């Protein structure tokens, strides 16, 4: 019997007995590769947001866990994701953000693709001036499309193609936040920023899920939103996070606030919720704005957080919107020393993954348990596929 890469049995215990994921899940390249498949490629992972390709033909090359991808808005206005490589020699097609006016032309031998991925030209493939050949079936050689789903403007991808449909996998979350499933207006250039953090991407999730740290790490927030004003949000196997009952709108000097989303329940007058859509998308909703944070892993110990803020109207007061961005930037920056400190802590030999507060850490433990469950499923599928193991 092969040795497991890491022991997950203690992670899957009830919270009062459980340990967190072992150190290797934050530091080890082999485990990182295993999680890349089981926890990211096999799930609906966040890649970016639709607002990054606002106009028809906009194309944005992205590298997601070393895989070259191209997110673009096709001629019908639909956001789609392709592997950013030519089907001829595997050449990178688009190496910088740009607008595709007509077709995507490979810079190597000029094979051309429509924005819906069709291979539309194969110049000289049958010899000079002969652009067809019976051995080249263009219908089979379109761009390799990655399965995608757009919800609340976040572009989710399922690279393996094996996940259940997004609307099934996340039916309960979509129902929970149906009131926010309406046109969201990205605040524009001043409403997007990135944070580069020296930690494993999961630590950003783990910190985001719980309210336990708020009074210690975000004291300013605690002046009006105390620990007891928060509640856990827990949907095993799908999402977890926290909510507050005392959200306070940002106001200008003259009392101006952002417009509210229409038709919200009275609950949202003062409530706000912060949820991780497993694996790597952190969302926040309030009566007057939402945000999305897409965590892009760049190795076991490095993550780039891509943050986007959205409003209920296309036009919002510039100064107020910029203050809102600054306010969130400050809050998220306050978390950096925590996630980076936990990352450094994962190099302490013998650390057992830590213990959870049975009362305060439920949403974080739920994420650990989900990661462990995905890995266990992946490992058991791998064992079943391994003839040597099957014969044991």
């Amino acid at each position, binding site marked *: 019997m092969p040795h497991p890469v890491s022991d997950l049995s203690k992670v899957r215990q009830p919270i009062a007995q459980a340990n967190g994921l072992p150190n290797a899940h934050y530091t080890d390249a082999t485990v990182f590769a295993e999680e890349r498949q089981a926890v990211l490629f096999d799930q609906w992972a966040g890649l970016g947001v639709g607002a990054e390709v606002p106009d028809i033909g906009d194309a944005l090359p992205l590298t997601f866990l070393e895989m070259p991808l191209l997110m673009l808005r096709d001629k019908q206005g639909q956001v789609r994701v392709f592997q950013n490589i030519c089907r001829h020699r595997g050449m990178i097609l688009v190496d910088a953000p740009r607008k595709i006016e*007509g077709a995507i032309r490979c810079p190597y031998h000029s094979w*051309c693709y429509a924005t819906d991925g069709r291979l539309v030209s194969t110049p*000289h493939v049958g010899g000079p001036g002969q652009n067809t050949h019976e051995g080249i079936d263009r219908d089979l050689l379109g761009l390799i499309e990655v399965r*995608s789903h757009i919800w609340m403007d976040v572009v989710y991808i399922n690279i393996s193609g094996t996940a259940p449909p997004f609307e099934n996998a996340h039916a309960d979350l979509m129902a929970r936040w149906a009131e926010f499933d309406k046109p969201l207006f990205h605040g524009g250039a001043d409403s997007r920023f990135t944070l580069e953090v020296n930690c494993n991407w999961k630590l950003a999730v783990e910190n985001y899920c719980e309210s336990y740290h708020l009074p210690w790490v975000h004291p300013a927030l605690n002046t009006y939103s105390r620990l007891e004003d928060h509640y856990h949000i827990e949907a095993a196997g799908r999402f977890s996070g926290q909510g507050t009952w005392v959200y306070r709108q940002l106001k200008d000097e003259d009392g101006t606030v952002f417009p509210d989303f229409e038709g919200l329940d009275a609950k949202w007058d003062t409530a706000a919720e912060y949820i991780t859509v497993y694996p790597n998308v952190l969302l926040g909703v309030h009566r007057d704005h939402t945000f999305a944070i897409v965590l892009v892993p760049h190795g076991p110990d490095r993550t780039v957080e891509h943050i986007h803020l959205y409003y209920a109207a296309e036009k919002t007061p510039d100064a107020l919107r910029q203050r809102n961005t600054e306010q969130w930037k400050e809050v998220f920056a306050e978390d950096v020393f925590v996630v980076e400190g936990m990352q450094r802590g994962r190099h302490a030999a013998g650390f057992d993954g830590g213990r959870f507060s049975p009362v305060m850490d439920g949403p974080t433990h739920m994420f650990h348990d989900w990661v462990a469950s995905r890995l266990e499923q992946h490992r058991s599928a791998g064992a079943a596929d391994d003839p040597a193991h099957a014969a044991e």
Partner: protein
Amino acid sequence: MSSIDAALLAAHAAGDGTAMMRLYAKAAEAAKTSDAAAFYLTHAYVFALEAGHADAPALHQRLIDAGREHPAAPPRPPKR
């Protein structure tokens, strides 16, 4: 070097797709054999296609008529 070659090199250097389309189409007209004409016409079509130029469908049709291109396949829906 002919004047058209020089203009083509300049258009390539400038990345001017529309100019390349026009120059290659002109070269196709001046070609002495059908193979040479198809070669240049192919380049004109590729650059028209890339630029989304209004002449792309007509260039495409000329190549189809010459037995050197396929009609386009129908659009593909997104993979969701």
